[in-house]
């Protein structure tokens, strides 16, 4: 096309494409809006949604699997062993609980919402809920503590454990004294020096 031809073509082509574009936008002027008015209307969250974590602390056996699986180390768990005379109850999967969980903190600000902690839990006590409106003004409020043991209960549990350990140690020491075959930490006295040399085995009897 000659230069003049291109010139005219460009002008009319521009006008044409501009009008095509304007037709599209005016059509959208009358379509329904794609947004909802959020605080008054909330959209539905699917059931597999991964939002805020929740721990059902009554089911927790203190195995620490979730804490190990977390890629950003946002779960902190401390456990105290229970003594055989205390009954901590059963989990929902009918296993016996053997550990107290005095501290189960999740720093939800660090959490990356990957869901890796949910899979290894044997009792399925840690789950991702569909709550997504949990903003706080103070960052300290974002450290969620799920444990429900009071300070006195923790102190009592620790005391019981120490007492139990003490008793166990005493029992072990007493058992060691009675049976010679038991392993003890008592230093062994060296055997007496025999004046006679030990008999040389008869090589002919091999």
């Amino acid at each position, binding site marked *: 096309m000659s230069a003049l031809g291109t010139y005219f073509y460009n002008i009319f082509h521009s006008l044409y494409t501009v009008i095509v574009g304007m037709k599209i936008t005016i059509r959208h002027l009358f379509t329904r809006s794609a947004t909802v008015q959020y605080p008054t209307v909330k959209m539905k969250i699917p059931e597999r949604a991964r939002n805020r974590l929740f721990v059902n602390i009554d089911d927790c056996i203190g195995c620490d699997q979730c804490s190990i699986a977390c890629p950003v180390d946002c779960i902190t768990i401390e456990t105290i062993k229970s003594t055989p005379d205390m009954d901590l109850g059963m989990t929902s999967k009918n296993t016996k609980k053997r550990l107290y969980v005095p501290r189960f903190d999740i720093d939800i600000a660090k959490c990356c*919402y990957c869901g890796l902690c949910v899979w290894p839990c044997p009792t399925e006590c840690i789950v991702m809920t569909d709550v997504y409106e949990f903003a706080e003004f103070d960052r300290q409020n974002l450290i969620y503590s799920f444990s429900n043991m009071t300070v006195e209960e923790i102190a009592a549990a620790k005391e019981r454990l120490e007492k139990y350990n003490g008793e166990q140690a005493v029992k072990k020491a007493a058992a060691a004294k009675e049976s010679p075959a038991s392993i003890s930490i008592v230093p062994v006295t060296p055997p007496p020096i025999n004046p006679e040399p030990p008999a040389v085995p008869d090589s002919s009897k091999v």
Partner: protein
Amino acid sequence: MIINMGPQHPSTHGVLRLEIVVDGEIIVDCIPHIGYLHRCFEKHCEQMTNYQQVIPYADRMDYCSAMTNEWAFALAAERMLKIEVPERVEYIRVIMAELQRIASHLIAVGTYGIDSGAFTPFLYTFIDREKILDLFEMTCGARLLYNYIWIGGLSHDLPVNFIEQAKDFIKYFRPRIKMLNDLLTYNEIFVKRTANVGVLPKDVAIHYAVSGPQLRGSGVNWDLRRDDPYSVYHKLDWQPQIGKGEVGTVGDCWDRHIVRMREMEQSLNIIEQAIAGLPEGNVKAAIPKRIRPEKDAEIYVRTEASRGELGYYIISDGTASPFRVKARGPAFVNLSVLPEIARGGLIADLVLTAGSIDIVLGEVDR
């Protein structure tokens, strides 16, 4: 005059600093400064207790296209451990990756419209993207960073109404591509702005190791899904899209843009075929209990992510966490060609050229 298109700028797609030496409005030189989003991804990988924990970190590298990141890492680990995943897992991974490719290209196209001054296509593309993110949220629970493609399988199987909703999406989206083309791509003002701008010649592209839509926009017929095949792409019928210089020279910004638009259509075809051929199976059958590759095993695996060739190089020292993970981010390599193609243009052209490279700073800086 030296002018600074600083880290905070409405159109540098993230925290990228471009130091431009201009003469009037003509650019004499352009020096990109990166590193504002460096998050020590590769170092973090060494601290993880096992390989599976790296997947959430790999997600966050190219946050606009997370499924492809996860898939590349999972492929690398699977090849190192010599795991065979079930057929169903392969097909689902293909569906997810292609949906993710469409979502990522929608962001690229929308923000490219904003760079050139048209604010409306951005909102239209985000409405379409919402539908894709709804599909993802239905499957794995998250909308942007999924932790879905695990080493050896997937974290969840497809929910019951996924197939139907995906088919609805395909039917809904095809006319939308046409509408976006009418509104933006073939608009004469947009064509005049992007034709013959930021021309990347074929040989320069190959020498700088660019990949993805940028490479194909320069006329090079190279697509890793066909030329270095992985998963089931060789069983599906699709074509890589090449730029032909329809409204200007081969390798200009318009070519890259139309390659992205056409790739979205091809992805729709792939998803349709994958849904039709989806076999039954257990998606968690091949997930290993313990991931412990042998000592001194190293592997480099590359895949076609939304922005180009995404590769992971893993060195193992026999323990449960990798010794070294190196990610080859396509956006990083693609960005390196910017000084070359921006010279001689105007500042307005620089904005469009940088936009057509489609960088995501998470991938550039890792």
